């Protein structure tokens, strides 16, 4: 009870303490600081129409590399947690001498087979969603969207498929390969930027092309594509791991 009271007091304090900060913050009338620079010079610097993309992939490219790494770390962590660690012995279960490969009908809830509607719909939609995902990351430097968004869309396609076919499994080897190679290539592109252009992750070692075209803005589309593939494969892997154990 005291604890509950303490929580209320704490949250009230936070609310009261931060509210003036929130409420008193004047809405910006115009851009200032680095943002102004980005907006003014973004197109010129990298030739990317989507300034957010320019910021994400190039100006603050290191953040994005880190972000990819975070996702990668989380994937690795999930695999470590759910995949490789020793199987705990569950109540009222025979010991799992058979090993890891068998999918467990776990948690007392049987995994149901997808309905015919879901199955058909999934089969129909899967390539379209996949294509949509690719579209999103390839055009990341021009329109809203980018590697992460595209990757997530791709992963959602896979989720759909997995929901439809409970017995289906992704090929881990292939996923790993895509993940590893796209990640490594990303780093390599970053290094190329350093060696061939002005700095690490500088996309301008490729020609910037015509402003607004698909193949423009240096290596940005390339990077976004790699990110898209990596994110897609990673999220797929995550889904697969979670599903297999849960």
């Amino acid at each position, binding site marked *: 009870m005291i604890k509950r009271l303490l929580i209320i007091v704490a949250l009230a304090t936070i609310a009261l*303490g931060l509210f003036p900060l929130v409420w008193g913050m004047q809405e910006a009338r115009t851009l200032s600081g680095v943002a*102004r620079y980005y907006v003014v010079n973004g197109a010129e610097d990298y030739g990317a129409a989507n300034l957010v993309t320019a910021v994400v992939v190039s*100006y*603050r490219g290191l*953040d994005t590399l880190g972000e990819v790494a975070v996702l990668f770390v989380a994937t*690795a962590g999930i695999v470590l947690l759910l995949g490789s660690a020793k199987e705990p012995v569950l109540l009222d279960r025979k010991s799992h001498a058979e090993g890891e490969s068998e999918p467990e009908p776990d948690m007392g809830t049987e995994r149901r087979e997808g309905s015919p509607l879901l199955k058909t719909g999934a089969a129909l939609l899967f390539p379209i969603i996949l294509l949509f995902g690719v579209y999103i990351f390839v055009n990341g430097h021009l329109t809203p969207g980018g590697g992460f968004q595209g990757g997530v869309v791709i992963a959602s396609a896979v989720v759909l498929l997995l929901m439809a076919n409970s017995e289906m499994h992704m090929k881990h080897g292939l996923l790993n390969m895509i993940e590893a190679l796209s990640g490594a290539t*990303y780093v390599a592109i970053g290094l190329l930027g350093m060696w061939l252009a002005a700095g690490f992750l500088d996309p301008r070692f490729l020609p910037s092309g015509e402003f607004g075209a698909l193949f423009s803005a240096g290596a940005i589309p390339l990077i976004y594509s790699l990110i898209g593939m990596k994110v897609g494969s990673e999220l797929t892997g995550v889904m697969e791991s979670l599903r297999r154990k849960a």
Partner: protein
Amino acid sequence: MVSPIYAIAIPLGAAFLLPLFEKAGKNAAKALVLAILAALTALPVSWLVVWIVNTPNLAGLLRVSPLAVDTGGFPAPISIRLAAGIGEALVMALVNLTAFLGITHMLVRSQAKPTGKTLVLLLTLVTGVNGLILTRDLFNIFVFLEITSISTYALIASNGSKRAYEAGFKYIIAGSIASSIYLVGVIYLYRLTGSLSLDHLPRSGGTAIALMLLTTALLLELKPFPANGWSLDVYQAADPGISAMVSAVGASGVLFVLYKLTPLLSPTHLRLIAGSGAVTFVFSQVIALRQTDVRRMLGYSSTAQIGLMLLVIGSGRGTIPTIVLLGLLLGNHMLSKAGLFWVTDLIDGNRTIASMSDSGSLPALARNKPLLVAMIGILLAALAGLPPFPSFWAKWHLVSALVPNGRWLLVAVVLGGSLMEAGYLFRWFTRFTKASEDPGDVHQERIPADVPVTTRPQTGTVSSRSGKEALARQAASTAAATQATTQTIPQVVRQAEQPVEISGSPVPTIIATLVLVFGGIAAAVGFLAPNQELILLVPLAVLLIGALLDTLRIPSKIQLLLGMLGIGVYSWLLLPSLGGIPLVFGLLFLVGGLLQMIALMQRKGHQPGLAVLVSTLLFSLGNLLFVQSRLGFFFSWELMSIVSYLLIVRGRAASGAALRYLMFSLGGAYSILVGLVLLPTGFAPHATSSLWAGILLGTGFLIKIGTVGLHIWLPGAYAEAEDEVSSLLSSVLSKAGLFMLFTTAGLFIQPLLRSVPGVTLAYLLGWLGALTALAGAFLAVFQEDIKYTLAYSSMGQMGYMLLSFALMTQLGWINSMYLAVTHLLFKTMLFVAIAGVVHRTGTRLMYRMGGLISRMPVSFFSVLIGIIALSGVPPLTGFGAKWMLYTALIEKGWYLQAGMAFFASAIAFLYLFRLIHTIFLGQLKDEHREIREAPLWYLVPQLIAIIGIMLVSMFPNLLIKPLEMAIAGYFPQTIAWQGSTLVSTLGYWNGNAVMYVTMGVFLVPLVWLLATRRKHNQKVRQFNIVYSAERPDRPQTTHYAYNFYAPYRSALGSFLTPWATRFWKRVLSVVRVVGSSTRRIYSGDGQTYALYVLLYAIVLMLLLRGGN
């Protein structure tokens, strides 16, 4: 120079590719990881090398322009910048080295080796930390923070244990809240300044709250007390290899980020950081005292160390740059803490080493794996901040920075916490260094259970029937018990000596230890060189050489000979350059030490550590004689303390006593530390001084002397140490404190002593001395254990020296040194003779001996001379001391002190007679009928000491005149010489004449008796006495020895209550209760921890408001 970008790009790329390498072969992946970590270590080292080569001096090195790299092709505020300055390079090198060793450790151990994803996560963890260190962008910091955190979250679960899952989940909850706070802080900061680059943030007032949010989040990531319950579970539950990485590597990055933020922060922020660190430091130490799981204890210690570093970051500018201080502390912490975690991993067949409980102790470890134990000792010493390890120097400079600013609370926190830390760390150490029969706690003296304690005759005689029966029963059972113990002991030992297996290779731990050692030596050279005091490192060199000899298992005799040779040469070179008081004490320390070493020659075979420690101790005592700088002195003093601790801990049942010794020594050393810092211009003669410096220094020295109230370490340490070592401690080492009192008084306290508060101090000191003399004598009277008797006797004698010193008159000081010299001689005789007796009889309990005069006449003679010299009976040296003492006291007008001293000296008769009687006179025991005289190596130093005593007795001016010269000029002359008569203002004393008269009056009756009675004399057998109307046939029933002064005990009643011991026990229990009740806040509930995190943040924000 290689760009810092590779430090991120390469490991990250490798991490991405690692799954593919894994397919190519497990070893390929492992090799790749190790190679990358090696490269990461080499990278910052290469920068450092270039900088060092290119800059002429240290100051320039600290101002070297950092190696900056912008990403994305644009300069900093627009893009993210990485920069590596000297600090970054230093921390990176340390982090990567530790990580390299840590992963190597996990790969070469025999338990679960990291493969696949674990390896990937370890690599990303290191990458994240490198990123944290290098990046100059606030949001980028967040990204790397998350890489580090998420790697950690996942790694915790790597051993797949239930507890690890629990710990990990709690960690995530708390960590996520901290991240959210950080994000809010970053976005506000961006909104207010329009920039995220650390180098381009304007310092404007409006950002204080945003900065505080950042600071709070970073602090929370650093696990501050009390918002850190979740982190401690991690240390306990996770794989020790992972714990080491989390503790050593993970935290360093965040810590460095906080350091990077400091230029932006206001003094209020910094105060909050320092305060947070201080609170964390002290409470973590207090709670750590109560831990039973070593890993959790190490976890608390980690938290505490981080707190200390926060304190350093927050407390601002010091005498040396903060980054150097931080580097010292961080490097020390990382390597030692990781090393200790690895150790628990290495010897953890049944988790025994990771337990603080008695059942979990490993008594056999020290014997089976001496090198391993030595390694653990080094790691612990480094962690506890003992010289010469880096944190020792950091501690000195930290306190030097805090004291002048008057931040007393922080000083108290730092030193108090360090003391507690040393306490629990070394308590763990004793768990596996002690012998199996060692109870491990501190005990007054051990009377075996076969003595009927309940029927202790209270009125002092055994004439009552029950008393006699009890005595008879006791005798019978004693005999039985002795037999029984001799039979059972081997069994006990065998049972306890389970084989201790090292699982896996200790090489990485050894490398970490060596890096620490060499880092410490390098630091020592670096800090001592500016004062031209590199010679102070001689003891360290001796220690290293000795350790080498020990590793080669060179017999102790040879080692001792080498040591004696070394000390001889050292004395030859050093002593002629000294004069006055240092010369007197130089002779005392070095020549006295040589005398002690002779007795040690008795040891056969290889005695690990014995010779090297003794030699090192003497060399570090030698340091005290000529050291000039404050730091140099403190270094030597602490070195002396730790070496003597190690010497004591070698005793069979000494672990508890040694720990107590260490605690008091360190407490004293910390008091001295503050006192030294308070001295305005250092450790050199000058005319001004402060009262507090005097008091603090004095307290430190008084602890070493064993002044009453601060003495409770003394009896155990002297008694439980090995027998010859006791002699060394009592006769030589105990004078170190006295010497420093003389030195400080002579150099800079003297002006103070002329002032009014100084006079009061000296007066107090005098009373302390008198009380010490009295308490020592009284305590000695009632001991059954011979070594405790001698130990308390030493304490009493030191009391006289202190009293004489406090007089601050010519005669007083002469007497103090006269006592010091003669005490060296007669205590050597007594302790070494007793060592011989104990060696032969196998017991230390006096009532188990008796009648040994017939078996060990030389030892008896030595003890006889010793007790006469000690008691002050003319004509031997003791009387000179008494005469000078009382004369000086009465001259000074200290009448009551004189009365007390006289009473103490009368009490001394009691224990002295008891000592000689119960051992050498009375009835010889059956089991001692065949024993022989003490070994020759014991007799030699005794004879030398006897010769010394006799010489000084015959010709007191041989000693007194040089002493008079040594202190010439300090005080007005109050004594005069008329021939060989020493004349004071009150009386006179002619040592020669007394000697002749005594010899005359002794010889006359002797000749008479010989002439008249010789042919009538009839020697009878042992039992030819009539006692209670029968002839006794058992020595045990007839030897009056147990509870010898029972009437005195009953007469004194509650006067004998051990107040000091009680007081210190109370102090300890208060600390423990605080620890126990404080740790209740760690309820184990993840949500409660989250609430703490939140409340902590709120409190910090409120404090910021209040501070502005």
